[in-house]
């Protein structure tokens, strides 16, 4: 039986932060749920009509956007994993004294605002800009080729922006691996490749999971990359774009809110499937 003060202490500690999260996160989410079930227009006002029919309506109309966003995000995640793993591995195993320095160098570009970085990429990748102007002059690339405003460019942009989100968790996980386990594997006649897959990679899985989630979840809801790098091309229009448009341009709050909730549901389902598959439960790092 705890004394009174010990019983209250955790509550007091929790109170300010929890209250804030409830008021500014949980309550708004609840409101968004309510708003999704309303009908009306902005000027004439919205009425709570408990219009559950909006969900099938919204899903049937926009399911392709969810699919497209998931595909883009998955591809970007796979790419960041493929690119980021060797880098994290190199820094962890070969970095020596420079480990911290190298990590900080990886993160350094991302101190500059993400908006500025994306805008500069748009400039670099423009049709007759630094990269493609040069390639076109060389004749390597057709004169009317363009990279911007294509799905590939959006995936490229997403991959770039989320690389550190993948590299850092990977690094943390790989760095912790006890080298002696790898030595033991090779002692037991495993080839270097086998030692890598069976030992190193498996032990680094929590990092892979953390990095994948930290990349996939924000990527699936992103709309800036599609707007800036994708130039508003219809083929790259993502779920985030339609939600933003409905909230900030068409003022169609009920549909926008419904789309938002479906997105949350989709993300939760995919995340659950993924973590069950991988069998890891160490998501909070």
């Amino acid at each position: 039986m705890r004394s009174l003060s010990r019983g209250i202490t955790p509550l007091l500690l929790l109170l300010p932060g929890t209250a804030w999260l409830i008021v500014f996160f949980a309550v708004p989410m609840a409101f968004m749920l309510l708003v999704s079930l309303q009908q009306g227009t902005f000027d004439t006002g919205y009425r709570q009509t408990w219009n559950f029919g909006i969900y099938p309506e919204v899903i049937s109309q926009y399911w392709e956007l969810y699919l497209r966003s998931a595909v883009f995000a998955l591809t970007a995640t796979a790419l960041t994993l493929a690119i980021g793993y060797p880098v994290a591995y190199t820094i962890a195993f070969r970095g020596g004294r420079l480990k911290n320095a190298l990590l900080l160098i990886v993160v350094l570009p991302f101190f500059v605002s993400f908006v500025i970085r994306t805008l500069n990429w748009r400039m670099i990748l423009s049709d007759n800009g630094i990269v493609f102007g040069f390639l076109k002059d060389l004749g390597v690339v057709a004169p009317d080729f363009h990279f911007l405003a294509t799905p590939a460019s959006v995936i490229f942009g997403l991959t770039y922006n989320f690389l550190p989100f993948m590299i850092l968790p990977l690094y943390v996980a790989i760095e912790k691996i006890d080298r002696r386990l790898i030595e033991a594997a090779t002692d037991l006649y495993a080839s270097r490749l086998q030692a890598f897959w069976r030992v190193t990679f498996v032990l680094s899985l929590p990092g892979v999971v953390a990095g994948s989630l930290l990349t996939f979840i924000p990527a699936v809801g992103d709309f800036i990359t599609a707007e800036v790098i994708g130039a508003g091309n219809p083929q790259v229009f993502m779920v985030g774009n339609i939600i933003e448009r409905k909230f900030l341009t068409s003022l169609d709050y009920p549909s926008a809110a419904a789309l938002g909730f479906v997105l949350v549901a989709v993300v939760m389902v995919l995340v659950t499937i993924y973590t069950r598959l991988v069998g890891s439960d160490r998501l909070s790092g």
Partner: protein
Amino acid sequence: MTSAAPTQATATHRPPLRARLANLVLPVFTGLLLLFLFSPIGVMIAFSFNDPAGRQNITWQGFTVRNYVDLWGRSQITGPMVNSLLIATSSTVVATTFGTLIALALTRFTFRGRWLMNLLIFIPMTAPEVILGASLLTLWVTFDIERGLLTILAAHVMFNISFVVVTVRARLAGMNRTLEEAGMDLYADGRTTFWKVTFPLIFPGILSAALLAFALSIDDYVITLFSAGHTLTFPLWVFGVSRLGIPPEVNVLGTLIFLTAFAFIGVQLWGQRRQGKAAPITLVGR
């Protein structure tokens, strides 16, 4: 990287060329990737010195330092920059405090509903930003709350709390409890133990949580977009003025921020080096 030949460098036997080259693959790849990561930064710095004739800033038209000299007098940067710094500082202070308290509660006490608490912390970190921003907009509109600095601040504290909790909690979890127990064995009460033992030990965690919160807040675009109304923060301003080409001021500011971060990190690393760690670079081989 599937060399089957083991790379044994004994005193008399140099590893075969193929193996040595194979050993270079990873570091070269890493080096190239680091260059790749810096490419927009490099371009940004270069074009901050550009002197464009019209509104377009995509071809090199002449070197000038005028953009740097004129920076604060021109266009409307000062307002958004000040807003961003104000919001970042305040939200960092508040979020770090609240988040640390929660982390302490979660790791040091047991109580019913821990799983609920964990959920409450976990979901904001993983929900896409567009959802967080949009739901807050719903709140503001429902209650007719004027959007501006305060609503942005509320939003930033909200999403920062989760990150602070996770950071500090990891630190707390990895902490050696015996030190606290030692403190209490030496007749220190709870409060003294906390301030003299626990707090100094978790301080690096709190500090890095604060830095993280600051960085997240300064750079936030999506959530801020929904809660700002017509107030401008730095990322919002950048986006707005870049509709018709990236004005040089944007690159100038980006460069300044980058150089500041670079200097900060450089000083840290130099400080480390000074403590006698002048070791040769060992990127190839172990």
